[in-house]
């Protein structure tokens, strides 16, 4: 069965997100309901929220040397805030789930198929 990655996007860094605010609490509840519906439908493969991009490290391996630098790879203000891997019979089914994810997260969701599934 094809697998798709549904990623959650934020327009701005969310380092200062207040988890106790009613807005965030509402979204957390919505996402938790969405997760439950993914599991119930047998669609869930994996999913996780991500700490802000400021926590990222980029590692490179060139000629046997491993180097690392601070920061996310892409220097954009948009950030991926989390993702799901789902299993769906086809694109339309995946897009349908993405629509529900977008409603739960109150933000845009990018849908990408995995290679060779």
């Amino acid at each position, binding site marked *: 069965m094809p697998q798709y990655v549904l990623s959650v996007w934020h327009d701005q860094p969310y380092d200062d997100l207040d988890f106790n605010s009613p807005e965030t609490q509402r979204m957390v509840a919505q996402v938790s309901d969405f997760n439950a519906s993914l599991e119930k439908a047998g669609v869930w493969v994996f999913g996780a929220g991500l700490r802000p991009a400021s926590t990222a490290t980029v590692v490179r391996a060139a000629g046997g040397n491993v180097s690392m630098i601070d920061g996310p790879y892409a220097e954009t203000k948009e950030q991926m805030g989390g993702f799901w891997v789902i299993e769906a019979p*086809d694109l339309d089914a995946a897009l349908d789930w993405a629509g529900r994810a977008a409603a739960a997260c109150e933000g845009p969701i990018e849908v990408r198929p995995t290679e060779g599934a």
Partner: protein
Amino acid sequence: MTDPLADVFRREAGRCTATLIRVLGDIDLAEDAVAEAFAIAAEQWPVKGLPPNPGGWITTTARNRAIDRLRRDSTRTDRHVAAHRLRGEDMDPDQNPELDDLDGFVDVVPDDQLRLMFLCCHPALAADAQVALTLRLLGGLDTPEIARAFLIPEPTLAQRIVRAKRKLRDNHAPYRVPRAAELPDRLHAVLTTVYLIYTEGHTASSGDTLTRVDLSREAIRLGRVLTELMPDEPEAVGLLALMVLTEARRPARTAIDGSMIRLADQDRTLWDGAFITEGHALVRACLRRNQPGPFQIQAAIAAVHADAGTANQTDWSQIVALYDLLVALNANPVVALNRAIALAELHGPAAGLEALQSLDAGVLADYQPYYAARADLLARAGQPHEAAAAYDRAIHLSANATERRFLEARRAALAAPQP
């Protein structure tokens, strides 16, 4: 067109490709196979004559060729799987495909063309890719033809088509007619794409007018296929009605020197009576269903214009009422602009200008028809100075030589502005 092969190609290429995609499960494979089958037909038909069912012959031949190719390429695992799957069907893949009685072998499902339309117009594709893919797969146009028609470099268009096909394949886009719940939105995307193809052919924005007429004719053909396959969708009927009623005016739209003639100034005896009769019948048929939609209302507006023997006889109050309905269904600035123009005909240029004032100028800032309409209304309201400025802006924004000449002539005809 006198060449029977070209005729069959026009009529059958989309249908054959649509069926082959279902049978083979792969767009590229289907396209190559159909092209190969037409190449064989080009060799055989002039000698042996046209088979009794040319479309069936092409489909069956294409399928056999595809199976041969899958066998040849079967070192690749995925192809091998596909070849294996195909072998299970009720035919001998090695059979020589020149026999007429092969016609019955491929199960041609009428829905195949619908499936393909929904696939080409999948909302995950950008509008320009939807148009290109529709023309390529359903219209049987080749890449240079489409690139010429849309005035874009061939490599750009080729890449657009390759990317769109890859996106559909990599994403496992389903090959089916959408379910009832999704149908209204998905159908709207299909109808919009067909209309985009039509208007591109109608505006004649290049010197190569012939190619443009072909685009309009192809859009009308696709519209006919849609109404045959979805007779219960009034918007599909509405779109076809809108296209044929607009097409009816084509002979009157340009003067002998190629310059543009406005609707009000057209010689209505040149309008195509057959298209108008067909359009009227279609408008009546869809409106009877009482599920009004944007295409049906635009068709009804075109029908009101078609009813008027001269421009003076136009029933503008009915047109304004139809635009009101359209604005209520689909409030966009372009519709509002056309409503303002109709309002000016009914209540005078001042009323039209007032309606224009209330439009969102930001959205229309680079929209040539907005300035052309404004210029015309200002001229009629006795404000030649302001009209000239609006014409200048419209001329600056026009990408079309014929249109630009028209606007320049209108500007020149203004009473000389007082300094």
